Structure formats: structure tokens, C-alpha cells
């Protein structure tokens, strides 16, 4: 395995030392990290790399697809019938609730009309399948089926039946990336259901956990309190379940209580999620721009 077999004998020219070459490439990598993490300027390169890895991704899906096909083949009839009955029962219950909700909504809109208040927009939604969780233990992210071509927009909230799961943070042509609520970079305006106290919830960076860093230590928060989205940013509709408070520590040295909450929506529980589309045209924006303030802006429309 001497180098002579693959390289012509060259006595005097010397290539750079391994240390030097390693250093050059390490610097290049550091430049990449800085440009991507700080300035977000490498999206073109990322898209190109994504396209290059499409065959690899498809090859990697073969085992799970095979497993699905096998499962479908061997799934017992009785189990499916049982599931069908349960689902029918649930559907019936929910139909009743939905009808009541329609009535209530109509009444609410009439009242709002009388009081000349803004009506809160209803968000259209679509169901999307989870492809996989991001293959990196440092970030809490998910990959979803459906991308630009399926009209999935940047910034859309993503839910499961148990509550808020996260937000779409990157849209590729065929799939999109969800940053989970537990991700450190995500902050959500929430309110505590019992006391209607509004605050911000921040992802803790650990799976399924978030913290409330800005609650004064004197305020009334208990373990077991539900956190709902407050809808103040206009991005998440008001009233989505987010988390349950698990721990409240008050120390005399700090003005803020140390509160941890457990997320309601788990990644492993559901094969499908609901992607809400923030309404592109908030109808009352044009009529009374001064009033709307922070209540309706949608991130995709923030940029002029």
C-alpha cells in the first residue's frame, strides 16, 4: 500500500502537511458554522445538499416501509374492528361537540358584532404525516410530509390531538421541518388557564419540557395548572393546550419563580399532526390598522 502505486514518483515536490490541510478545512468548517448559525446565509447550499441526499433518504426509508407493509399484512381483523368501533364512537361524540361549537361561534360572532369587537380569525388546517424526528439529539425537531408544493407556510403552528407540538421553521420542496415547543429557540406567549395570567414559555432544550422564566415569584401558580396559548402574537390561535406545570420553586434571592412544565403533546404518540395555516389576510387589518397592534400580524407578512 505504498503511495508509489497510485502516484508517479516525485522526489522534490511536497504537498502540504496533514496538520496544515486539516487546519484549513477546520477553518472552512468553522466559517460554515458561523455563516449558517449566525447569518443564515447557507440556505442555497443546504437545498443543494438536500437534493443530493434524496436517493440516500429514499434508501433509508425502505426498512420502515417494509415494516409498514408487513404490519398491514398481518394486522388482525378483530383489532381493526375494535379500533373502528372506538373511532366511530369518538366521531359521534365530537360531531355533537362540533355542532354545539358552531352554534356558540355564531352567537359569539353576533355578540362581537353588537359590541363592535374584532372577530378572531379561524385558522384553516391540513393533516400531515410525520416522516421522522430530526436525527440529532441536540435539537428538538420533526420532519413532516408535504412542503412548498402542498402550501405549507413558514411559521405555521403544528398540533396533535393533545395540544401544541411546535412550529414550521423550514420548508423544503417535498417536506417541512417542525421545531418542537421544547426547543430552546422557541418562545410561546401563554396564559395560565386557572388565573388567566399571561406570560412567556420557553423551550428548555430537553425532550418534552419547557420553562416559564418570567413569572414573578409572588404570583399564583401551582403544579397541575394548564398552560394555553394566549394568542397575543397572532401566530398561534388562542386557547391551544400547551403544557401542564409540574414544578414551582420560589427562592428569596430571585424575583422570578423557577417553573417547569411538561408538554401535553408527545412526538411518539401520533403518526399524524395538524398544520394550521395562519390566515394570510387578517380581514380587519385594513380597516383599523391602529387597533390591531399585536393581535393579528402573521410572520410571513411582517416583512414588507
Amino acid at each position, binding site marked *: *500500500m*505504498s*503511495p508509489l*502505486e*497510485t*502516484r508517479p514518483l516525485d522526489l522534490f515536490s511536497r504537498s502540504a502537511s*496533514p*496538520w496544515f*490541510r*486539516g*487546519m*484549513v*478545512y*477546520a477553518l*472552512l*468548517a*468553522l*466559517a*460554515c*458554522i458561523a455563516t*449558517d*448559525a449566525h447569518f443564515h446565509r*447557507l440556505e442555497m*447550499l*443546504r437545498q443543494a*445538499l*438536500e437534493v*443530493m*441526499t434524496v436517493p*440516500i*433518504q429514499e*434508501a*433509508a*426509508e425502505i*426498512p*420502515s416501509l417494509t415494516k409498514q407493509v408487513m404490519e398491514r399484512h398481518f394486522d388482525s381483523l378483530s383489532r381493526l374492528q375494535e379500533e373502528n368501533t372506538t373511532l366511530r364512537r369518538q366521531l359521534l361524540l365530537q360531531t355533537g361537540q362540533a355542532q354545539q361549537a358552531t352554534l356558540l361561534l355564531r352567537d359569539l360572532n353576533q355578540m362581537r358584532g353588537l359590541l363592535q369587537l374584532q372577530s378572531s380569525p379561524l385558522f384553516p388546517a391540513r393533516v400531515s404525516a410525520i*416522516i*421522522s*424526528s*430530526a*436525527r*440529532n*439529539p*441536540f*435539537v428538538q*425537531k420533526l*420532519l413532516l410530509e408535504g412542503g412548498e408544493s402542498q402550501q405549507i407556510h413558514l411559521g405555521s403552528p403544528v398540533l396533535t390531538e393533545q395540544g401544541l407540538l411546535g412550529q414550521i421553521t*423550514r420548508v423544503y420542496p417535498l417536506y417541512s*421541518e417542525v421545531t418542537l415547543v421544547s426547543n*430552546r429557540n422557541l418562545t410561546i406567549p401563554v396564559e395560565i388557564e386557572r388565573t388567566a395570567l399571561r406570560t412567556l414559555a420557553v423551550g*428548555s*432544550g*430537553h425532550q418534552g419540557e419547557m420553562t416559564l422564566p418570567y413569572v414573578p415569584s409572588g404570583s399564583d401558580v401551582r403544579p397541575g395548572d394548564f398552560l394555553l396559548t394566549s394568542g397575543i402574537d397572532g401566530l398561534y390561535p388562542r386557547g391551544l393546550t400547551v403544557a401542564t406545570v409540574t414544578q414551582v420553586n420560589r427562592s428569596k434571592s430571585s424575583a422570578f419563580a423557577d417553573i417547569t412544565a411538561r408538554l401535553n403533546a408527545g*412526538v*411518539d404518540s401520533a403518526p399524524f399532526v395538524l398544520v394550521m395555516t395562519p390566515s394570510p389576510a387578517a380581514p380587519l387589518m385594513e380597516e383599523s390598522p391602529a387597533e390591531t397592534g399585536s393581535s393579528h400580524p402573521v410572520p410571513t407578512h411582517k416583512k414588507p
Partner: protein
Amino acid sequence: MDPIAPNQAGPALRAPHSLRWILFSFTLSLVFLFFPWHGTGLLLRPDVTALLVVYWGVFEPVLVGNGTIFVLGLLSDTASSHVLGVHALSYSLLFTLVQYYRPRILSFYRLNQMLHVLMLLMVTQLTDGVVEWVLGYAWPDWIWWLQPAIGALGWLFLPSLLERSPRSGDTPKSL
């Protein structure tokens, strides 16, 4: 040049592996990376790509260069849908260390080589961890640190597997 190793004297005289095969093995390791990992599996998933970087860096240092390793790092960053360049950095560092320790690694038997591989993979893991920490991400669960150990165990059978892979001088027997 290289010290003549007791167990490497034979293979050292053979023709180099075909470059196409080397790239194919890297592609396979990326497929492994792209499997839908999650939970504990994700934390314990051995970094096969890094192991291959060590193997080809030791046994084919002329065919595999820094550029290949860098692109490989970028591709594996794409797999983790995270900041570009994290793995490119750690693999570049790993490859440089492999080149430095190559004669030493070649002079040992496989079990002792495994300890070197463990050290190298640990450095890679640590680089990843430190970069993520600087970028502001929380450390994962402690079992994440078992990854290099599991990867190093792969060194027990990977060399005997790859030793038999196609070499550039080989001609198919059917011809």
C-alpha cells in the same frame, strides 16, 4: 516508512481498494444515518461514518483526502437537519488525527487498535458536543456519551469486512 506491523505485513503489499467502493461504503454509512432514528436509539446510534473515516484514513490514506471528508461531513449535517459544518469540522479534525496516529495504529493488534479508535471517536464526539454547546444547545442525556464506545466495538469486525472489499487491481472472475 510505516513500521511493519505483525498483522498488517500481508495486506500492506496488496493493491489499493477501488475508490468507487470507498465512496459506496460512505454512502451506505449515510443511509444508516438517515434511518428514522428517535429516542434512545438516536442517542446510542454509533457514528459509522466516523468509523469509516478512521478505517479509510488508516488503510487508504492516499485515496481519501480532506476534501472528501469535508463534503461527507456536510452531507451528514444535512441528515441531522442542523447547523451546516458541525460534522464537517469534527470529521476534518478526526481525519487529521488519524493521519498523525496512522503508523502507531498500524503497529498494534486489533484490540489495542480499538482503544485508539475509541479515543479518536471520543474526540469527535467531544468536538460535536462543544460546538453545539457554544451554539447554545443543551447537552443531551448522558447515555449519548456511550456512542463512541459502541462505535469502537464496530472496529472488532469492520476491518475484516472491509479488507475483503474490491481492490482496483481485481478483475471479476467470470471474465
